[in-house]
């Protein structure tokens, strides 16, 4: 093994952990995607999960997704909490019958010895009110620590999943802290080098955590954000309308084509609205009652996008009625 290979051992570097998971799931036939280029609260929001979970077409993908949780910012002072962290997301549709075994194999691949560590599947039903989605599954525990979420999607954007997709979400920092044996996230070895060449998680992200915490809690321009929420909501609706089949412009030569033509751009606006809402929430300018109505507004967008997606090629062009 060359020196570089050793540096990239999952137990030695954060990036090595990511690369190992990518290789593992690539070997299972997943397309290895890159993070979605928008701010999202969780890897599930990536269209490769949310939209691809809908419709009949098989789909296997894995990717890292930075997750933004404005409210979880702690100005870099808490060793476990971050307003920006990485999730490793795997989606397999339909879920293979041995998904649990595959998951356990992936833990082995990143250096968890299953003869030494106590792995448990503890009930945790997942629900995303903003995505109109829910599923059943577990938190996966390693020696009492939650290291992953394991979910069988039952419904997304208000539609029954048919077939059901299995979704795995690894909390990368937590897992890395575990396999590297460090107590503080900022002490994680990022690149696996030692001495002068060593780069820690703190070197990369500590300043960002401080700056974004300040931004999220103190400075984010709420007036602008409220405007952006309304704009994103309106744009989402407008794009959905504009993407409806029918003779809209000159480019349209097949007016009988039943396909929706702009589900993904519309969904980007739904993602945008969701993140803007999270920022407003962190600024504390949304009251408890309003909160519910904002969540509902995002959900309505997600549902409309999901409905449009199902009328696209990748969505399977299925004429299935929405779930009650």
């Amino acid at each position: 093994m060359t020196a570089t290979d050793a540096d990239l051992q999952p137990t030695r570097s954060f990036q090595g952990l990511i690369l190992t998971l990518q290789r593992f799931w690539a070997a299972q036939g997943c397309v290895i995607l890159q993070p979605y280029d928008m701010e999202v609260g969780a890897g599930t929001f990536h269209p490769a999960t949310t939209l691809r979970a809908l419709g009949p077409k098989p789909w296997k993908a894995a990717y890292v997704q930075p997750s933004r949780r404005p409210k979880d910012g702690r100005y870099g002072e808490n060793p476990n909490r971050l307003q920006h962290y990485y999730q490793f997301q795997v989606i397999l549709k339909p879920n293979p019958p041995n998904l649990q075994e595959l998951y356990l194999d992936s833990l082995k691949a990143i250096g968890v010895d299953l003869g030494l560590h106590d792995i448990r599947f503890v009930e945790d039903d997942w629900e995303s009110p903003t995505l109109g989605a829910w599923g059943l599954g577990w938190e996966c525990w390693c020696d009492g620590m939650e290291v992953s979420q394991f979910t069988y999607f039952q419904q997304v954007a208000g539609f029954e999943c048919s077939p059901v997709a299995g979704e795995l979400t690894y909390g990368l920092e937590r897992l890395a802290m575990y396999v590297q044996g460090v107590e503080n996230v900022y002490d994680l070895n990022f690149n696996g080098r030692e001495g002068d060449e060593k780069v820690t998680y703190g070197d990369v992200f500590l300043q960002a955590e401080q700056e974004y915490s300040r931004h999220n809690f103190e400075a984010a321009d709420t007036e602008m954000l409220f405007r952006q929420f309304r704009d994103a909501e309106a744009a989402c609706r407008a794009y959905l309308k504009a993407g409806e089949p029918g003779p809209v412009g000159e480019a349209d030569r097949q007016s009988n084509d039943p396909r929706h033509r702009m589900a993904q751009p519309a969904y980007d606006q739904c993602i945008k609205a969701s993140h803007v809402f999270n920022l407003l929430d962190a600024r504390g300018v949304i009251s408890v009652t309003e909160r519910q109505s904002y969540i509902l507004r995002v959900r309505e967008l997600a549902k409309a996008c999901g409905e449009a997606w199902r009328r696209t090629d990748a969505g399977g062009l299925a004429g299935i009625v929405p779930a009650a």
Partner: protein
Amino acid sequence: MPDLLLELFSEEIPARMQRRAAEDLRKLVTDALVERGFLYEGAKAFATPRRLALHVAGLPARGQDVREERKGPRVGAPEGAIQGFLKSAGLASLDEATIVSDPKKGEFYVAVIERPGRETIEVLAEILPAIIKSFPWPKSMRWGAASREPGSLRWVRPLHSIVASFGPETETPEVVPFAIDGVEIGFTTRGHRFLAPQAIEVRRFADYLPALERAFVVLDADRRKDIILHDARDLAFARGLDLVEDEGLLEEVAGLVEWPVTLMGAFDERFLSIPPEVIRATIRANQKCFVLRGAPGPDGRERLANAFILVSNLVASDGGAAIVAGNERVVRARLSDAAFFWETDRKVKLEDRLPRLDTIVFHEKLGTQGARVARIASLARALAPVVGANPDLAERAARLAKADLVTEMVGEFPELQGLMGRYYAAEQGEDPTVAAAIEEHYKPLGPSDRVPSGPVSVAVALADKLDTLVGFWAIDEKPTGSKDPYALRRAALGVIRLVLASEARISLRAQIATAASGHGRDSGAFAEDLLAFFADRLKVYLRDQGARHDLIDAVFALPGQDDLLMVVRRVEALGRFLDTEDGKNLLAGSRRAANILRIEEKKDGRAYDAAPDPALLSLPEEAALADALRSAGAEAGRAVAAEDFEGAMRALSALRAPVDAFFDTVTVNADDARLRANRLALLHALRAATREVADFSRIGGEGR
């Protein structure tokens, strides 16, 4: 006799659902068998995280033969009748029928239909798939490629294989022949996920249980619990510590492992400065670990030890060292969070948190938590003198009672609400009764929860519950059937138990009006309905205590009964009175009087409610009764006014002899209309006198 062994092997079943699911499986299968006439000797069901299993012992190999005789038409009956008979009896020709002769009816055909009993295994093949497909999981899911199709199998988590074996002990059993959506059915199961993952062949229950044990699976949840409890106590004992037992946690933990391995971990002693309830909540809720008690502290109070018990599912190759280390890391991180909350929460005084409550909506139609606190505070102040509390302290406690809802600690552990408020109040030097009331104002939380006794606690607890009840009545969000989302029945029961335990004299009607005015409402529209709700709850409560609910009705039927303590006192006195000879006879007499009155008043179309005319009392027994009624009625009235219900009953008991004598000698329906009217008026006076204590017409019969 043959046995059934059924095992449903799946991915991890939520711990909280396992016991119920095993019981449902047993009941559904045995009920279906019994319904089809198949009796069995015994049945027992089991659950582990990955399997539900059922053993039904002593089933017959096949059902009973059925022999049925069906009577047909006369010999020589018309062809149509004959054909109809053959068809309905399933006979090919009359040759298959027998002829019976009857001296009266002559000769007629009889068909003897013999149906052999069905093979039990066939019946099982019918029953089992139906039960599996409609199994009553609280939440179920679809999965895998099969979930493309609508109506695919639902199970709590993916179901992988089924063992369904049927046969006698001495022979090789058979697989019950049925199929479910591509789930494998046969004799194959698997052991522990990590310790014995290979396939195991099982034939019958007698070898199933030991085969699982060899494969590191303890099938019986109660045995897993015993093992955990025993090992945990041993581990604690060896260190001179005491296990803080926790049945709910034990049940849950036993549902998270197939092969329990109990280990002990420790945490830094400095965390013991955090309140013990917080340590326990942290370790229990997040880690599902048990805490331990050490030697008492210098103040003689119980102290937790800086150790915990964890239950793993693995016989680890290093003896569990890595598992303990991992759990300790997580416990350390969690306790650090808790210590941080404990430190930071105490930097802000409770009253400084109150403005935050103004931003939290309690209920859309009932305003914010802040508004609620203001209402409860003024209500607590008003109630204070009634329960013997200092009004300033009651108001202060109520003002601070909800402040801990916006602390970090309660945000993290909602179950610590109240308790944290008490700690923080004590830390900031509040009066001890105020601190206690902050914790206790939520109590009692159920029929078996402790009722607070400190007057300040009682005042705030009553104010909190009355405000909630009145608020939800005002917006017409009352409990219906099994739906009681705001736990209003519990709140009303809480009021009842608080009032009775503290012997507080409270006019509910007046307090409802006061509470309603806090909501800016007039209680007129709903006060009677809410009082009736209290009456119902009181009935349920007293019935649970063994009181007769008809006596409660008899007391509530009197006007103006809104003082719970007095109602209960009266019911008790009435119950005791009716247990005496005098009471029983007076009840019989007054019932007789009431019957006569009802009939005669109906016949005459008028009421006999005037006072009896002394001039018309012709017989000595009449005069004696009239006298007794006058004095007993007045005395009972005086006693009731003085809240001396025993005295009132005693006064009434003086009526027994004159009432008996009256009915023995006096004819009520006298020929002389004036005498008759006067005697009816006398009976009316008897009813009126008894109504001083209760409406006797609501009291049921002897031994009811």
